[in-house]
């Protein structure tokens, strides 16, 4: 189950963060998302070291945190998408397709002429479409 998705801006500032748990661990998930930015930094700064190819937006598994797994995705405009899931056996192809849909929803949201680039995304439509994408994915 996907428990949290986040969009993080250039200055590593949160643009959108939404958790999908009934439990009261929203803050814990925020911490996990924030810590995963270290891994993204490392992968982006040393692409050859970590074996990721330059043109690949999907960053793969960032790190396993407790009972969660954190996946990352980096757009061409250096906006980061982060997804936290409780599923332990996840196929990369599924995560990739999830991020592709998520990216499309993000592009729709920031294409809104009333959206100011670099500001937090407060669009309700975006929130709804993200919720729908998250609901449609259960990796197990």
């Amino acid at each position, binding site marked *: 189950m996907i428990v949290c998705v986040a969009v993080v801006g250039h200055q590593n500032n949160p643009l959108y*963060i939404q958790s999908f748990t009934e439990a009261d661990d929203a803050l814990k998930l925020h911490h996990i998302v924030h810590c995963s930015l270290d*891994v993204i930094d*490392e992968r982006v700064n040393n692409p050859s070291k970590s074996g990721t190819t330059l043109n690949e937006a999907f960053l793969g598994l960032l790190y396993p945190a407790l009972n969660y797994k954190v996946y990352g995705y980096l757009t061409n405009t250096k906006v980061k998408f982060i997804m936290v899931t409780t599923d332990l056996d996840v196929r990369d192809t599924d995560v990739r397709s999830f991020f592709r849909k998520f990216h499309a929803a993000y592009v729709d949201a920031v294409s809104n002429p009333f959206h100011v680039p670099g500001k937090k995304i407060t669009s309700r439509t975006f929130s709804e479409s993200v919720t729908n994408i998250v609901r449609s994915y259960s990796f197990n």
Partner: protein
Amino acid sequence: MVYPPFSPFSLEYPPLITLSQLVLEVISEDRLLALRKRAELDSKYVLFLNHSELPLSLPRIASAFSELALAYYREEARRIKSRIEKRSSTSLDLIVRYCFKVAVYAEFRRDWGEALKFYEDAYHSLHEMIGTSTRLPAIQRLVEIKTIAELLHFKISTLLLHGGKLTEAVIWFHQHKSSYDKVVGSTEYIFLHWEWMSRQFLVFAELLEASSATVQSFSSLNQGTAQIPLTEFEFYPAYYYQLAAHYLQNKKSALELLVSMSVAAQEIDGSSESITPSVYVGQFSQLREKGEALTLHFITDEEYIRYAISEAKRFQDSFEIVAWLKKSYESFTNLKSRRMAAFCAFEIAREYFGLSDPSNAKFFFDITVNLYRQEGWVSLLWEVLGYLRECSRNLGAFKDFVELSLEMVALPVTSCDDFGNLRDKTYGPGGPATVSRRESIHREVFTLFCRETELISSTEESGFKFAIDSPLHLEIDLVSPLRPVLLASVAFHEQMIKPRSLCSITLSLLSHLPLPVEIDHLEVQFNQSTCNFVVRNSQKPLVASPSSTVQSGSQEENEPSLVLVPNNWLRLTYAIKPEKSGKLECLSVLAKLGTRFTISSRAESPAAMEDSPVWKHENYVQSLPTKDPILAVFGQKATQVEEPEPQVDVSLGASGPALVGENFTMPIVVTSKGHAVYSGELKINLVDVGGGGLFSPREAEPFSLESHHVEICGIDGAEGNDESESETGNIKKIQQSFGLVSVPNLKEGESWSCKLEIKWHRAKPVMLFVSLGYLPQGSEANAQKVHIHKSLQIEGKMPLVINNRFMLPYRRDHLLLNRIKPAPDSEDISSLPLNEKSVLVVSAKNCTEIALKLMCMSIELDDEQGKTSCLIQQGGGGGETSGSANLAPGEEFKSNTVSVLPKSEHVLSYKLVPLTCGQQQLPKITLTSVRYSAEFQPSTIASSVFVFPSAPQANSTAK
């Protein structure tokens, strides 16, 4: 001596016999052989030692021993392996035991591969026991299995890491963790599981840290397998230390919960004393006295749990947690993983907070809070600030408490959800990040310092028992996290203002506090303290509070209300009257709230204003600080106050071109027209108009006078004599292009003049700058100088252009081509005929716009035959002034044009020789005046003459 290698003695493992060399002297060799055969001993197990050379003999004994030992281990392992293969025992626990034994024997033999294989076999068999074994009571059974699993895991990890198989070790740990992750056992006593999990991570972290394999970069490894992808963090010991601490935290809280819920907390302690770990790994037993003998008994699960709880209570988990997290924090800091490090710091701080150690907690919270502030993670920032606020409350730091509370309150928390149904423990002491919580903190803080004096005594409930009636002053600068509390934008309406005249200034205040704030009064401070002014709120009683920044009697404004509405600019426009010239800058705006609380906010220009990091990315409606959109974008908090209008005139008397070589005199007159002049100073500067300096780079010798094309030769004061110069130090300084002259004190209406002499060495246009600085009101300390600037461009011109050419004689020789064409390089040397007189035509053209008097011209020959110089005077001149000729502008000396100066006359005379008789035309003479564009044309009659044939005579007429 006889060493039995193993007891009991058996012939299968022959004894090793060492005999002293001396034995051979006593017993014959044959007898020894017979003895050996009788004892059925191999010759290699009988060693002869020379006691004098013992060190040399010892290695032989060692190798013999090891050979025997290896043989024994191999044999034992083979024996046990055959038992496993035969499946003689179906009992899983025996198989685990056998596998362990074989692995240990393999380790003894340094056969790492086999050791690893059998440890893994043991591990897997053990895992199968979890659901099947019924040997011990349920809890103890699981404890035993997990303890053995831990032991096997330790063995396997160590072997893998020592073999340099880092990736395999990490993958193995993964599998180990995931196989036992869910093997919790009784949920009531889950603390046992957490403790065990924590130990797994700790042990692996320590192994990883100690292993030399970690030195090699994880990046060179293939990141895991396709099934189990590994990430960077999983190769860092810090990651495991952090998780070990996390599981220990789980254990700690589970244990605390258990102990608090346990009714019979006391009885736990009593009966658990005699329980000890058994000789078997993972088992516990009780020591009981039976008469005089002590016997060990199995214990029930209840007894075990009591024992486990009492043991667990003895340990200070918090110290362990802090120690591991600190290791992790340092390691992540070294790896430049700032966010992971910050998270560890946060966990450390929380642990210290739980231990009621606010100063240590504050130290680590501060590390965390800075990162969250920078990156604008509001939810995380809110939580940390909540903790910090409590720390400052516990430390009694009132100012910190207020600052942190205000920072929290001014965060962009817009969530309206009230998670009232959730337990409090999910939030820090700051509570949930909601608007209502922001508002309640706001009210709490503002009642704390805005309440009336008589209520101060009852502030103990806030935790502050002292110093609450002392004034509190907060400074907010550009990088302060409190900037959203009070943002002061100041914009002057004009970029340049006149002194002593009113200028408008707009003061805009913005607050992100959730509730409106009423300000008692505002103090606006400038770099010129005379401009400081106060804005009072008319609704508040006038309190004569002593102010250090605003002098009494300074400007005061009154506003009907001074209320800062959340996220709305409070715009105030006032007029101020600056006294002094120069830069006028608004420094800060000080807001007084209540009787004891002041906030001073650094003034910012609207043009350079940026949102604070936490508000920068918020999607909220932003309004402009000023109504005027241009001012909101380009407004500045500083302006330039002009100098007072100078009432002194400086005039530069001369104009027009200067001639090269001439001592050009420039009179400078300083006339007072309303201002008296005190300590006046005249600065004179010559600047090359074309740029590039007043001297050519070719001659750029700094001390050469001639290097300057234009230079100031001297300045004569009005008095003009040397005496006054030396007395008053009139000429202070003169350089080639710079002069400084002091002007004597002048009263109103007086004037003073001096003459400046400038000399041109080359034709060059020059800019002359003259600036006078003076004090209008005597020599007061705070008086400001008034400056007047004058400038004049002066052209330096060559007065005459001199040309010379030889009149070539009539060509007499043949037209020979080769002689007509001169060689191209010999054009400037014209050839002259020998022994004949040649005519040299010298012309000097006046290229200036004024008339010049040509005194004389001289020609000097630079010849080998001696110098012949001659003086030439104007040939056809009027002759009134002997030896000199007037040259009108543009006129050329010895030329066809004739110029007539006003009030002078010029006689043109020529001779005519008539060749035929009859009516003849005289040479036509036309007079054209260039300046007045007038023309004179004589009549046809006046220009014709009749020539008689007989008398060869002619008269000439001319005007």
